[in-house]
């Protein structure tokens, strides 16, 4: 492909099989917009691996490899190793996995890659369940949310696994949370992440109208309310040590977030004060980590050397 054609092409084209209003597809679109065409995507089984298109067609015009569920970070590390031994140090290797492929079955490979500080950008697009197989719970599912394996008779007890804390414990140079409801913040952070060398982890909040039970036009709105209610706050972690909040609108109560989603119907009716309390506690924990006196120096940016 020549330079002219490359410059003209859209990296994300229509005709894919995503549900109407799918947060994950918008997430990819926003991501590729930030990272650009010099990107190779490694994605495991999940919503994206089936919605991308039917062989031999695809809706993305960057190179993509669709891999086995547990292997995302390992394949991505291999891709990066192959590129760099051939002299290519500039192409971004994007590992793009859902919450199942990150929090659960993909965690070992992710931990391995992070420990080696493999030079990959791992983005988890989190729709908080195994959506592609029909809405089953994962360790990213919040407590109290309905899924097919945590029905109303057996709602999930366990809190959502804190993946960013896990990644921070690996002391990787950069970790962050982003949301499709805060596109400028997402764009800024991904552009920043692109230039960092070493393992980078981004936790991307992507609502799912099908699995969460909200109207398809409310996908962005739900994402926004998640940030405002601090169910999904925006922040960055540098070298696993320095935690920095991103600018967010003033905090509001969780009912503004819960009310749109059928998966929280029971919680909203019976137990939302408890839910609010959990959110408040987690928020306070995060605030404590972000206190200036918890770090030896306050950093605005990241060394990209």
């Amino acid at each position, binding site marked *: 492909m020549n330079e002219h054609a490359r410059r003209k092409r*859209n990296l994300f084209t*229509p*005709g*894919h099989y995503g549900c109407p209003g799918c947060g994950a597809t918008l997430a990819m679109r926003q991501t590729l917009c930030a990272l650009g065409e010099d990107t190779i995507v490694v994605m495991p089984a999940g919503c994206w691996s089936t919605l991308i298109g039917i*062989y031999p067609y*695809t809706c993305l015009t960057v190179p993509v490899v669709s891999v086995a569920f547990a292997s995302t970070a390992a394949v991505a590390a291999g891709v990066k190793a192959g590129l760099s031994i051939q002299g290519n140090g500039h192409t971004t290797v994007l590992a793009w996995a859902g919450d199942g492929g990150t929090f659960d079955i993909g965690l070992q490979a992710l931990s391995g890659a992070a420990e080696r500080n493999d030079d990959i950008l791992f983005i988890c697009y989190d729709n908080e369940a195994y959506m592609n197989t029909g809405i089953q719970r994962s360790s990213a599912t919040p407590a109290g949310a309905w899924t097919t394996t945590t029905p109303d008779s057996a709602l999930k007890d366990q809190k959502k696994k804190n993946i960013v804390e896990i990644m921070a414990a690996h002391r990787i140079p950069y970790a962050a949370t982003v949301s499709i409801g805060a596109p400028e913040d997402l764009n800024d952070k991904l552009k920043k992440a692109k230039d960092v060398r070493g393992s980078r982890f981004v936790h991307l909040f992507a609502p799912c109208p099908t699995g969460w039970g909200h109207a*398809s*036009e409310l*996908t*962005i709105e739900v994402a926004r309310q998640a940030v405002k209610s601090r169910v999904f706050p925006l922040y960055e972690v540098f070298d696993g040590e320095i935690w920095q909040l991103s600018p967010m609108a003033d905090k509001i109560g969780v009912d503004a977030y819960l009310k749109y989603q059928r998966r929280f119907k029971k919680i909203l009716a019976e137990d939302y004060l408890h839910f609010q309390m959990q959110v408040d506690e987690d928020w306070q924990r995060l605030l404590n980590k972000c206190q200036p006196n918890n770090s030896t120096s306050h950093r605005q940016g990241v060394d990209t050397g």
Partner: protein
Amino acid sequence: MEFEKKIISASDLPIMPSTIGTMAWNRTGDWRYLTPAVANKLAPCTWDCPAAVPISEYLNALRNGHVERGLKLLLANNPLPRLTGRLCYHPCQAKCVRRKIDRAISIQQIERFLADLGTDVTIEKNSKTDKKVAVIGSGPLGLSCAFYLGCWGCQVVVLDPRDQAGGALVDLSPEKVDPQLLVNEIGRLIRLADIKLETGVAVDFDRPGEVVSKADLVILDPTGLSEDFSVPAGAVAFNPFADKTVDSDIIAAKLPQNLKPFKAPMIAHYIGAGRLMARKAFDRLVMPSGQLRLAAPNPHLSRQMVNIEDIRIEHFLSSDLAERAIAKHGTWEWERALQEAECCLSCGTCNLCLQCVSFCPDASIRLDEDETAVTVDLDHCKGCGICAYECPRGVITMETISA
């Protein structure tokens, strides 16, 4: 965009299981129940403007630096902006949605600023035909009527018995309207529409004179005249707001009670009435031939008003709103006017903020090649409704569209 699915035979398959094309052939548009309709609607300010000036549109033009385009838009809908910018009671500002955030946009100040710029513009006009019209009375109604007929291709002569044109406007105090300004503004109107003005001409209908007798249509604007003015013989009273068709070659404007006697703050009403009158008069003039078309057809006049519920105030509250200095009267400078124009929420009027484009999960609403509008890709749009929901100014609505 490729629509045809490529036919595959086993020998076409690459050795490695890699793709050969995009998914564009997959018409996901078939999934839709509702279709997004991208259509500018009237902002509340325009809806309530008696002259139906497309306010959000000319503010958009200003904010993008297209001053001439903004002035043309203004003049094409209000030929006396230097006057309305000083006299009008600005019902537009009472309806400005920006009130919900801080305070209304100072629309009148911007109108005055723009009108005072003195930039030479031309506006879209039809070429002159052989239709002749005499307008008697040069108050804002008569002038407006003459202006539109002139733009639409008639040869118009405005006659006024007084030495100065302007009708009752002449009698206003200099503090309200500077006399020279009045002369200049009327002069601009005459120039823009390419029509003639003859002052100091009293028309006697028994001995009409050349202009009146040669005219295909005579229009009287008796606004400034006394209450007991009687319509001359042969002339038919015509209420531009109520009457549908002009049935006579001589008509006299008949205004509703609230517009009599002349009230300067209602100036926009008279301008609007003048256009309505001109429209119906024009119908009478060209009906037989039906060949002339309207210049500057003002498409906005047929639009619906935007649904106020669709203006997403939260979006504006959370985005960087321009810092606004304290409201100031008097004539403004350029920076101030621009700053104020930038604060306009552009209700119902697409200003290419591209929220819709950036939030579409299917990349199925796009900025056109010429970058003047956004268009929905009906072959792929799944009808999720995000674009309509996320449009902060109510331009996009979800509609049931039958095939």
